């Protein structure tokens, strides 16, 4: 029942989720650190901006990304100037879209983790000759480790389930953008319910296990507040 095309979709989906999560943790961690500590007036508007993907329909996101990354959009013009063509219908384009789509799911737990540290551990570190970078890496990161792990798991699971955005800018290209969620959709459209059941059921099982693991992780650490 599972064909080679399906395995390709499964592998692609996992690859997308892994790459997106890696990029996201690199982007979201310093961002969360800054948001947790800044008193700048930019904090509120920026926090709202980054939280947009939580409330916007994914198709809206996909639509704007299609325009922005297309040859007439600013991002598209830039990528063409770089000589790499345009990003829609490519794996790279999908990664960028996924990073934006899952950003708040990584940002919020990370920010909460950093905020709950309080000023004291960092003050202690400062009195022990630790500069800003030293404090961030050797004190804040280890203490916020559980929150950051939750952020990563959440971002990963969320990307696995991405659909609306992929629908808009994916183009159904096997091996590049034909992820599991779109494959399931295609099977349903074509009334191929057996295949749809296999894939959809597998995804449910995976997501459930991921969430179970996340909750087990958090039972050991401070309670995590999820903003949905």
């Amino acid at each position: 029942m599972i064909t080679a095309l399906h395995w390709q979709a499964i592998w692609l989906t996992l690859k997308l989720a892994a790459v997106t999560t890696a990029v996201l943790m690199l982007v979201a961690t310093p961002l969360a650190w800054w948001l947790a500590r800044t008193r700048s007036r930019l904090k509120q508007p920026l926090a709202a901006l980054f939280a947009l993907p939580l409330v916007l329909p994914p198709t809206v996101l996909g639509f704007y990304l299609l325009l922005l990354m297309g040859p007439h959009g600013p991002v598209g013009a830039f990528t063409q100037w770089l000589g790499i063509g345009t990003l829609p219908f490519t794996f790279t384009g999908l990664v960028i879209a996924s990073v934006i789509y899952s950003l708040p799911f990584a940002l919020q737990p990370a920010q909460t983790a950093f905020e709950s540290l309080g000023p004291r551990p960092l003050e202690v570190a400062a009195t022990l000759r630790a500069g800003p970078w030293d404090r961030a890496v050797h004190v804040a990161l280890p203490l916020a480790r559980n929150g950051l792990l939750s952020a990563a798991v959440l971002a990963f699971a969320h990307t696995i389930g991405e659909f609306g955005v992929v629908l808009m800018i994916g183009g159904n290209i096997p091996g590049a953008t034909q992820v599991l969620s779109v494959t399931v959709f295609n099977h349903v459209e074509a009334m191929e319910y057996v295949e749809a059941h296999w894939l959809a059921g597998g995804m449910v099982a995976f997501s459930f296990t991921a969430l179970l693991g996340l909750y087990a992780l958090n039972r050991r650490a401070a309670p995590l507040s999820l903003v949905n």
Partner: protein
Amino acid sequence: MKRHLLGALLLAAASVLPAGASADAVNAAVAANFGGAIKRLAPLFAQKTGHTLVPSFGATGALYAQIRNGAPFDVFLSADDTTPRKLADGGGALADTQFVYARGRLALWSATPGSVDDKGEVLRRAAFTRLAIANPKTAPYGQAAIETLGALGLLERVQPLLVTGESIAQAQQFVASGNVPLGFIALGQVMALAPGERGSWWLVPAELHRPIDQAAVLLAGAKSPAAARAFLAFLQSPEAQEIIRGLGYDTPTSEATTP
């Protein structure tokens, strides 16, 4: 005396109303390529019958699946003639109401004028980075595109460059936004654009693919069967057929002379 007065009033009131009593809504499941035509047909239909057409667009296969699963449509305008028959075989439509309302033509289209020559050489040269088509499993035009490529012996070479849209409408959108340089769409979609914005296209010779006979049918679960039949009749009327021809489709009643 009073009863007579009441009766006279009712009669007078009834005579003012158009025949066929109150205005109904006709929920139509329409193949995505016919969108432009519907835009022009719906007001005319309302004017003539007082009924409102409420269209939902999608890929033929997708619409079929929805109807099979109980979606509340009155009529189905497919992009082929096999799907309505399949529906009728399963009891979802009335077979004797099926007729071909338009014969579709496939076009290779670019939003940029001068990009596609009128002999389709650009396709044979295969110098493009991507080519958009509709999902052949769910859209007859997508299937026709695959057949065309096969007939030209280009399928294997072009296969890795294909970008598949969920419907013919999304395929058009990929090309219109410039994200994909070329795409196979319905001629009807090209004609639905304003004259100055049609870009460039190659009309694919009809012999390169199976005929795209677009058939309409009354659905078994229609809530407003009378209004629905009125729409189907309207589709076959001379005015409607003229509009359909004007958008680049052939019609069963006459052969169109498209360039």
